């Protein structure tokens, strides 16, 4: 039996709950990771992913395989995360603390960890759409065209979002350096 996402969605559209549970088990872990990186909060991420998966069920009969299921689901999750960010204030990324990376020099490693912590902190304070673009581009390795499809915008708008995000990050990191220095 064909168990591709699209085949499962066709069964979900006919009200097949087993296919829906199969699809959920397959995509919930990755979507939780994505939502958590955009929202910076595990509890909100769980709520957003649950809501997204329920929308997959209710809207399944209307779904048409024009794009990959994964792209459609990512778009739902990102939109729900952006809605939540509009309603609630930013919460700092919980796991932004220590990121261990194999480096030959201990001093260099410490410097890199500190830099990563500052970058994560500054990213958490970016506007919602800029942060979503950064997460999808750097976290999930998506192309600008894929990010544009998910954010329902153009490729040039995504490029602008990324440039502005980096400018904001630079400004935030410069001000942090001045405070520390």
């Amino acid at each position, binding site marked *: 039996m064909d168990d591709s996402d699209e085949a499962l969605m066709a069964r979900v*559209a006919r*009200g097949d*709950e087993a296919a*829906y*549970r199969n699809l*959920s*088990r397959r995509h*919930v*872990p*990755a979507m*939780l*990771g*994505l939502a*958590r*990186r955009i929202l910076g909060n*595990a509890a909100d*991420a*769980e709520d957003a*992913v*649950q809501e997204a*998966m*329920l929308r997959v*069920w*209710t*809207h*399944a*009969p*209307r779904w048409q395989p024009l794009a990959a299921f994964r792209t459609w689901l990512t778009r739902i999750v990102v939109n729900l995360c952006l809605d939540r960010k509009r309603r609630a204030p930013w919460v700092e990324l919980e*796991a*932004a603390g220590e*990121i261990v*990376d194999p480096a030959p020099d201990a001093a260099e490693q410490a410097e*890199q960890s500190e*830099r*990563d912590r500052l*970058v*994560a902190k500054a*990213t958490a304070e970016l506007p919602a759409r800029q942060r979503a673009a*950064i*997460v999808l581009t*750097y*976290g*999930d390795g998506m192309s600008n065209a894929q990010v544009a499809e998910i954010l329902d915008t153009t490729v040039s708008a995504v490029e602008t979002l990324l440039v502005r995000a*980096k400018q904001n*990050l*630079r400004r935030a*990191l410069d001000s942090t350096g001045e405070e520390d220095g």
Partner: protein
Amino acid sequence: MTNQQFPEQLDAALKRTMQAQPADPAAVDRVLARLGGPLPRQKIPLWRLPAVLLDWQFAPAWPRVAALAACAVLGFYVGIAGLDRRFDHLDGRFTAAANADLGSIVFEPETLTGARP
């Protein structure tokens, strides 16, 4: 970090900090458990309604269709056998009174002007 190094180092830092990490299994279980309950009704698009109505394989609904058909057959035989006639005669007097009233209402002169219809 110098100005020239900054873009590369920022890119590298963003890749490290934003990379997908394995989701917490407990969180995944919680979400899947919440999705495991009764699911809401699906939204059927209007363009699919004719197909739904013409689909005779709707197994869960067939007892209701059978009940409706039984009611229709019962109603047909009650009408044919005239079992409902005696109920018609019970309100015959009211029907006559209502007919008389109707005439007086229609043909009575207008109260203020005296005009006749």
